[in-house]
């Protein structure tokens, strides 16, 4: 399923939107996917979810012959319902907002990580307690202030002092890609 879904029978406006979302799916955060601002209230999020459901719910394409197309719609809709599940929960939404502020490319939320974080009382993207910790914290601060180059510098220092720390390396790659 690498190609964009193609079919002549769908409403052309919906098809155009499907194609755009399909292409951007790995990068869209939940707000962008639902087409709402990050300050949207619960009612607005619900409205956006309903509207996306009317367009993309698999039941709408139940009798559709093209299986690739149906699979693509299904993939998109599963992300839509994931977005709604997280954004309609005040606790998860708060944690998700923190996540995309720190790591904008990390657009999916993990309930598993969040539950672990709550159990441990730590932060989700803990870099560990090694000597690189202070650079890590400085990098996170820089990210929050949208200072990408600063974050990159701090993370390079962190990786230099703890070359074995996978979290540092992963985060550095993410920041480099920004």
């Amino acid at each position, binding site marked *: 399923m690498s190609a964009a879904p193609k079919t002549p029978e769908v409403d052309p406006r919906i098809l155009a939107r499907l194609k755009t979302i399909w292409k951007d799916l790995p990068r869209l955060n939940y707000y962008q996917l639902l087409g709402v601002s990050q300050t949207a209230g619960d009612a607005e999020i619900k409205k956006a979810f*309903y509207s996306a*459901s*009317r367009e993309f*719910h*698999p*039941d*709408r*394409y*139940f*009798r*559709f012959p093209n299986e690739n197309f149906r699979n693509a719609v*299904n993939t998109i*809709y*599963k992300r839509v*319902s*994931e977005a*709604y*599940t997280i954004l309609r929960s005040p606790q998860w939404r708060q944690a998700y907002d923190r996540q995309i502020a720190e790591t904008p490319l990390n657009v*999916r939320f*993990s*309930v*598993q990580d969040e*539950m*672990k974080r709550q159990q441990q009382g730590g932060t989700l993207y803990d870099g560990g307690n090694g000597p690189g910790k202070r650079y890590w914290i400085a990098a996170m601060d820089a990210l929050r202030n949208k200072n990408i180059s600063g974050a990159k510098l701090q993370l390079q220092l962190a990786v230099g002092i703890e070359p074995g720390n996978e979290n540092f390396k992963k985060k550095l790659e993410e920041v480099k890609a920004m």
Partner: protein
Amino acid sequence: MGRVIGIDLGTSTSIVAVLDDGKPVPITNDKGEKIIPSVVSFLDPSHVVVGTEAKKRIVIEPKTSVYSSKRLIGRKFFSGEVKKAQMIMPYEIVEGENDSVRVHVGEKDYSLSEIAAFILRDMKKTAEAHLGEEVTQAVITVPAYFNDGQRQATKDAGTIAGLDVLRILNEPTAAALAYGYGKDLNQKVVIYDLGGGTFDVSVLEIGTDVFEVIATAGDTYLGGDDFDDRLIDYFADTFFQQTKIDLRKDKLALQKLKAEAERVKIALSDNLEETAFIEAVATDKSGKPHDLSIPITRNLFANITYDLIQRTFKVCDEALQASNLTVGEIDGVILVGGSTRMPIIQDAVRNYYLKDPKIGIDPDLVVAMGAAIQAESLSSGSAAGSLLLDVTPQSLGVGTAGGLVDVLIARNSSIPTSTTRTFTTSRDNQTSVRIQVYQGESRNSAENEILGEFVLSNLPEAPRGQVKIDVTFDIDTDGIVSVSARDQSSGREEHIKITVSGGLSQAQIEKAREESMQVAV
């Protein structure tokens, strides 16, 4: 394309419905009945009867008449429910492969899916006679709180019955659809669904064209049967005090008592007092026959079932909490399931929700009617129908070291949905990883239901932590779980079949379908 039917496959009764001129209509069978007892009775290995005739045979042919089998479908042989059923059911319940449950009749072991398939074939036949054409597709309802194994087993039953199951639909969701269909309600409603063997509560927001389940909770071990059991206990205890004869040791007498208890329960819905009466139910040591004649008031009935009713409200609490709503924000309470005809239930529901429950549509028929609406909507494939947005009733997780569970998809998540988790090796040169999948709310894996397990094998030899496998867990619109895996380094993708413990393989389903078709229903 033929018509698609909606089937409410209940613990005690089943109903089939279809959309006629845009209206959901429960179908009457050739005996003039809409509500068909979910009983399968074997006349011989190649001939079964279903429904009222089969129910009558429970007393005459207890070993070959299978009832309340929905209580066993998708269960593990060693579960409490199965142990309990073994004690009270007159038919033989035996262990099948992989902890599964089989019903032994005559010379043959039947899976619970095969038993349910006979009921579905009867429903199919009734629908075909009504429509005058062959029916090959259906929407089948299940309790919202059914887990993956129970849903899968129900879907398999459809396949064995020769039906293409378009959707496994949650019963309360179906009821809400029938209730709100075409009414432009814009309400938040609670569906209180007490069936023969299961209890569900769903909180829904009904909009113009969208029916959204906000939260659902349930107890698949609680239903009208339990109220019958309390009456059976009361009558048996009282009879023992009077005669020193223990009816519970006499399976035939117990069957008669069960039928009478059900009759008394129903009578107590209209009358404040009723007397259970069975002529010459048992004989004492001297051979003298004794009649059972014991009166009971509705008040006493309420007292001996008080804890059962309270259990339903614990579930109601849970659903309300999960929906972030208060009782005051609920616009309506809808009663579903034959057991909600009991005035003691209606009074308790009124006290809990502080409003009169609605009984607009027959609580026995409403689920099948909703299934028929959804069936039509799916088959027409039109964007005009109402959209049902449902949730998964139980959390999905994987087992971790130390007997704990990590939740991957939380309960009440919107479905369909999926999540991906990266698994890695914990030892050098480890070539396989075993993953156990659970459903339930406990932190301890042992207290949850194991759905099954799978093994990621043929991993390349490498230092620990280097091999990374992305495993995607999917829950589809039927609430059924599937798993696929992708090796990060090779990009090799494979769909993994979770061996649902106790589930049937494709080959077994196909074989069962062929064998089942040889049996006349």
